């Protein structure tokens, strides 16, 4: 404590008349003289133990108790725990009379909280005081009831409080209103949190309204004022009802500003500013988007602004509230100009508080009319350079509201510099998400956008919005053709640059973005070799410093599991490209070898006697012959060099070779040909990682020969050296371990790798067949042996809940949805052929539900966002050697699914190609005005007969659900439908199929299938439906395209839902409810 304070304490008793100092004073003096924190602490502890003793004496003395409580509260303020005494506060409130009671209540309010267990004891005291106490006790009790009533006691206290609204003393009525507001809306919000239904709060809505209306009509202004917060709550819930009050509210405000209330209510000459502000808030709630109401408000609002012209701060407060209300109401030109003038005055004021408020008000106005800011440009620029961070921050918020394509770079520059400067994580987080939002919305070019995103991503991890880098990556894949290439190019450039400077402090989102971009779109830059990229990625995963042993443990790495998964997936993408190139190379090499054999060239072949006994190592070649080889050979050499360069890169930091062992049995994985040459070749290539940097490229073959000799010593196994330490990782996490295992095995067999993940130029995301048909045989076998059929978790839960689904029904329903998928899909042949290839002839007999062993989520190999792809090339046919069913052929599903997907894509490609531009334009539009007005247009199903299939019912989505679905692009499937052929149309149709007709047609058809029309905006429709079994919602977005087709995007959280539903929609659209349509037209 300060010296001054100590001196003051010393003289105080004398000034107060020299009487003996009280206990509180003694305590304070002692504390003031305490020189250290420790001393203070020991003093307080001593005091607390004294208080404890005093309070626990048998006979209750209210004077002593109050004395003790006062000291206790002081100790609590100092920050010492005083939990033991809360019960005494209750006792004092209960047993004390008037003054002591008041102190007891105060102690309760300060020491207890809403959910304290002892509050139960307080409730009785409260009720007694409310019912039988004098007005002062009542006032105290009401005040406490308005702060501390535990939720379960609300129903018993509420009626008594309502009775008090009729009390003769106005301060009792006023406190009763305040307490009632607290009780009603607090308890309602509790309930609404539980039940998500705020209408069922108690007491009933109309009763509530009556009560508060009565209070609003009270003759005493303070009671009336106290009812306004309650009206604000009510207005928020039911604005329509509250609008009937507008004339009365306008009258009140007019009386207030005309000074009709008693002078007591003025504050520095401004008549009841708090009351005015409450009324203005009510107006902004009620007049929002309502022209009729606003017309009633404008006049009094103008007067209010006029009368608030005073130098008083409270007048400015009222004025700023007026401006805010005005910015919410439908624009009124005259008032707007005046408001703009006032804002100018505030901005130019020398008072920092007024400047601050000016910026805030201007930001409110800019939301409606960004042009307003132009008049105040100089002041805003001044505010931007203010030393006060609060003003600067508000100014930045203002700028964010006026951003357009032209000024986005400047504004984002400001935001970024503020972001760099700030230390406050809350502020940084909001700045980061603002910057990104603006950059995405208004970016002038892709290079700039990439720059901004990379910069934000490279900042501290905790400030990066949680949806990053997903949002950015999604942009990369969904972008239209023209801009896509440049965006990808720049993204690759920027992230390559940042990948060179990775440290342990690099943020995870940036790391993920780098991983994904390098893995997915590195082909954009042709001079980047896959080997280079894979080495980069593996360096991120296992930094050179941590590569001590040959077996690094993933758990010891600093990278989180999720990022590890990203890295491994990225790696698998790059390696697949590498494998593809290798696959080609191996074929070529095979040719060379044949040639050289035929020509009797001096090529030394080292053969190993391994377990499989078939592996050949193309270990040594005469360099001279190499150089003499034909063009075809030089290609191979180039490739080898290429790889070699990158290996060197890598080995320069860590020279150890990573080896994996492939058993002879596994060697059988790939075709014989691949075994012989492919692997042999790779042994050569990979062996080079051992080579010193200085050695000439071609020398490696010699070294490799020696290497092979060593490896030969391992009996029964063949050693294949991989360039990637990554693959030798061991992880505690099963998912990571599985990824590593898969990658390792694939890498062991490049031809399989090339088939599973074909290196298509677009690097298509592999899609997974959720039904996993290659396991059919396995499952059938298991079931024949008596295994129970698999039941999806959702259905299991239903079973537990005692619903009527039994196992048979589940099978039937599952089989049904499957059969819909197989029967009508043009891809069924592909599925069958694959099944035959997989050698599982039993697949046809297996009940389909049993094949749903894993959900697609469980098998999705790629964390990158799935996207609709238009593939151009047919998949590489599977090689014959793969047909033997092996556990490791699990990965075959990927290619199967892809082939299936491609066929499907080809089918709709026609429509898609010509519509691509229009499609993206449509999506862009709807995303821009994302707040679709939800006009609930109920269309009765046109014909009941078409309502067959379905596992779905109409559904009115909750807003939250709607938003989730709308933003989720994970399970989006798209399909385009052309309108029925012209010959099939009834002749008397008045006009040729136009947009309006198509719209009607779509609405009719989809409503007939049982979809619920959620919204119609322009030529876009939104439908919702629900799975009858799981209750999972589905959203269908239907766009009528310029070309006269209908584009449908289905989004569902349950991916299982999409396919059958999409099919039933397709069917409904191809056989529309004609009769109904005809009658209408």
């Amino acid at each position, binding site marked *: 404590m*300060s010296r001054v*304070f100590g001196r*003051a304490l010393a003289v105080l008793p004398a000034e107060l008349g020299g009487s003996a100092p*009280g206990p509180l*004073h003694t305590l*304070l003096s002692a504390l003031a003289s305490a020189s250290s924190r420790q001393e203070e602490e020991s003093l307080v502890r001593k005091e607390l133990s004294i208080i404890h003793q005093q309070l626990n004496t048998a006979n209750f003395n209210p004077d002593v108790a109050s004395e003790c409580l*006062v000291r206790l509260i*002081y100790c609590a*303020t*100092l920050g010492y*725990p005083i939990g033991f005494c809360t019960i005494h506060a209750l006792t004092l409130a209960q047993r004390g009379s*008037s*003054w002591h009671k008041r*102190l007891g209540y*105060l102690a309760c*309010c*300060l020491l207890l*909280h809403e*959910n304290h267990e002892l509050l139960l004891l307080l409730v009785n005291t409260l009720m007694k005081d409310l019912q039988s106490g004098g007005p*002062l006790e009542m006032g105290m009790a009401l*005040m406490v009831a308005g*702060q501390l009533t535990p939720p379960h006691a609300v129903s018993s206290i509420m009626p008594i409080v309502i009775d008090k609204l009729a009390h003769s003393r106005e*301060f009792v009525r*006023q*406190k009763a209103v*305040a307490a009632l507001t607290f009780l009603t*809306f607090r308890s309602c*919000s509790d309930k609404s*949190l539980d039940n998500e239904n705020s209408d069922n709060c108690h007491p009933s809505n109309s009763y509530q309204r009556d009560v508060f209306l009565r209070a609003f009509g009270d003759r005493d202004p*303070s009671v009336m*004022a*106290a009812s306004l*917060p309650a009206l*604000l*709550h009510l207005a928020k819930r039911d604005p329509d009802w509250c609008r009937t009050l507008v004339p009365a509210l306008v009258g009140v405000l007019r009386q207030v500003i005309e000074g009709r209330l*008693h002078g*007591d*209510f003025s*504050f520095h000459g401004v008549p*009841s*500013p*708090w*009351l005015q*502000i*409450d009324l203005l*808030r009510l107006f902004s709630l009620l007049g929002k988007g309502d022209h009729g109401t606003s017309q009633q408000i404008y006049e009094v609002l103008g007067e209010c602004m006029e009368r608030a012209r005073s130098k008083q*701060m*409270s007048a400015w*407060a009222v004025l700023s*509230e007026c401006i805010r209300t005005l910015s919410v109401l439908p624009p009124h030109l005259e008032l707007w100009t005046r408001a703009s003038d006032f804002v100018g005055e505030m901005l130019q004021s020398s008072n*920092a*508080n007024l400047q*601050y*408020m000016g910026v805030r008000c201007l930001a409110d106005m800019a939301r409606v009319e960004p042009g307003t800011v132009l008049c105040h440009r100089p002041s805003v620029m001044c505010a931007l350079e203010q*030393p006060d961070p*609060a003003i600067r921050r508000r100014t930045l918020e203002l700028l964010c509201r006026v951003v357009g394509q032209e000024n986005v770079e400047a504004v984002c520059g400001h935001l970024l510099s503020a972001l760099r400067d700030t230390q*406050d994580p*809350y*502020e940084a987080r909001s700045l980061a998400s603002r910057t990104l939002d603006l950059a995405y919305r208004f970016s002038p070019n892709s290079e700039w956008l990439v720059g901004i995103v990379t910069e934000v991503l490279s900042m501290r991890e905790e400030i990066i919005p*949680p949806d990053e880098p997903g949002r950015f990556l999604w942009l990369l894949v969904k972008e239209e053709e023209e801009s896509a290439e440049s965006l990808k190019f720049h993204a690759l450039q920027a992230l390559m640059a940042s990948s060179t400077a990775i440290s342990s402090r690099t943020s995870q989102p940036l790391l993920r973005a780098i991983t994904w971009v390098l893995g997915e779109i590195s082909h954009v830059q042709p001079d980047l070799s896959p080997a280079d990229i894979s080495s980069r990625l593996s360096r991120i995963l296992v930094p050179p410093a941590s590569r001590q042993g040959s077996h690094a443990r993933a758990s010891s790495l600093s990278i989180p599991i999720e990022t590890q998964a990203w890295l491994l997936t990225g790696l698998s993408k790059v390696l697949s490209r590498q494998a593809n190139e290798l696959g080609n190379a191996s074929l070529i090499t095979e040719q060379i070898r044949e040639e050289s054999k035929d020509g009797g060239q001096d090529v030394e072949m080292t053969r190993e006697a391994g377990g499989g006994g078939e592996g050949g190592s193309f270990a040594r070649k005469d360099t001279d012959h190499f150089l003499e080889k034909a063009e075809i050979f030089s290609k191979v050499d180039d490739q080898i060099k290429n790889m070699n360069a990158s290996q060197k890169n890598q080995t320069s930091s860590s020279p150890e070779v990573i080896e994996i062992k492939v058993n002879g049995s596994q060697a059988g994985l790939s075709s014989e040909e691949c075994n012989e040459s492919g692997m042999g070749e790779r042994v050569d290539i990979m062996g080079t990682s051992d080579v010193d940097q200085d050695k000439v490229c071609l020398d490696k073959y010699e070294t490799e020969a020696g290497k092979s000799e060593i490896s030969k010593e391992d009996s029964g196994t063949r050693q294949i050296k991989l360039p990637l330490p990554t693959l030798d990782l061991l992880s505690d996490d099963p998912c990571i371990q599985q990824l590593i295992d898969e990658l390792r095995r694939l890498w062991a067999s490049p031809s399989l790798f090339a088939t599973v993940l074909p290196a298509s130029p677009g690097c298509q995301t592999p899609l997974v067949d959720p039904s996993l048909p290659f396991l059919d045989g396995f499952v059938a076998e298991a079931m024949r042996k008596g295994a129970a059929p698999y039941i999806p978790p959702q259905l299991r839960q239903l079973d537990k809940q005692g619903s009527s689904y039994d196992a048979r029904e589940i099978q039937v329903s599952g089989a049904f949805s499957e059969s819909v998928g197989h029967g009508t899909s043009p891809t069924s042949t592909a599925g069958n052929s694959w099944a035959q290839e997989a050698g599982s002839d039993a697949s046809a007999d297996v009940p389909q539900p049993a094949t749903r062993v894993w959900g697609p989520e469980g098998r999705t190999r790629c964390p990158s966002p799935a996207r609709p792809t238009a593939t151009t090339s047919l998949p590489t046919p599977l090689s014959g050697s793969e047909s033997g069913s092996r556990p490791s052929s699990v990965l075959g599903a990927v290619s199967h699914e892809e082939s299936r997907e491609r066929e499907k894509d080809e089918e709709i490609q026609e429509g898609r190609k010509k519509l691509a531009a229009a499609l993206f334009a449509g999506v862009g539009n709807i995303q821009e005005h994302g707040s679709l007005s939800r006009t609930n247009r109920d269309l009765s199903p046109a014909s009941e007969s078409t309502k067959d299939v379905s596992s779905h019912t109409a559904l009115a989505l909750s807003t939250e659900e709607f938003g989730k679905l709308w933003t989720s692009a994970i399970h989006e499937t798209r399909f385009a439908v052309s309108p029925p052929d012209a010959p099939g149309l009834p002749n008397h149709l008045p006009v040729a199929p136009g947009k309006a007709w198509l719209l009607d047609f779509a609405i009719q058809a989809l409503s007939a299938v049982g979809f619920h029309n959620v919204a119609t905006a322009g030529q876009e429709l939104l439908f919702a439906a629900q799975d009858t079994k799981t209750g999972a919602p589905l959203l269908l977005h239907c766009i009528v395209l310029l070309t006269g087709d209908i584009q449908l995007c289905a989004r569902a959280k349950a991916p299982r839902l999409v396919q059958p539903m999409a099919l039933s929609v397709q069917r409904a659209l191809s056989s529309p409810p004609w009769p109904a349509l005809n009658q209408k037209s």
Partner: protein
Amino acid sequence: MVTFAPTPMAGWFVTPVTVSCHFAALLPECMLIHFIVLFSRQGKLRLQKWYVALAERDRKKTVREITTMVLARKQRTSNFLDWRELKLVYKRYASLFFCCGVECQDNELIILELIHRYVELLDQYFGNVCELDIIFNFEKAYFILDEFLIGGEVQETSKKRALKAIEDSDFLQEETEEPKTMLEELGLA
């Protein structure tokens, strides 16, 4: 229950402050004061009133953060500050800082005036109030605050009435306590 950090982010804030503020979640437009604290220039807490339920530990942490932030403010800046998801409106009277935590949508100027009104009430009641008055009679300061702020809403806009209510209860005190205690004498000094 509303957390100050709306989205769970690993490593973001080690112990996210959990506030049960139903009002805040539902009714952003209503004037709601989350807390009002009084502290000295040395950062000593003099008075604290919370209108949202907060665990003891979080209260302490909040007070600590706020005092540091407010005391570090330079002169000639505005009286407003951003703190987490809230705004702080503070004003210094002599050696004492008055600080309110309010919702973002609230009108900062009127909160500033609210503080001023509170100080005026204290001033009238104690007669030229100083920090010592509040230290020795903090329960009175609480009573005055309770008279015009209930549940975070401004209740009584008439100064006369607020003072009368306090004086009424003081009258009660005189009635009930025939032998005057030191405490009471200090209160009326």
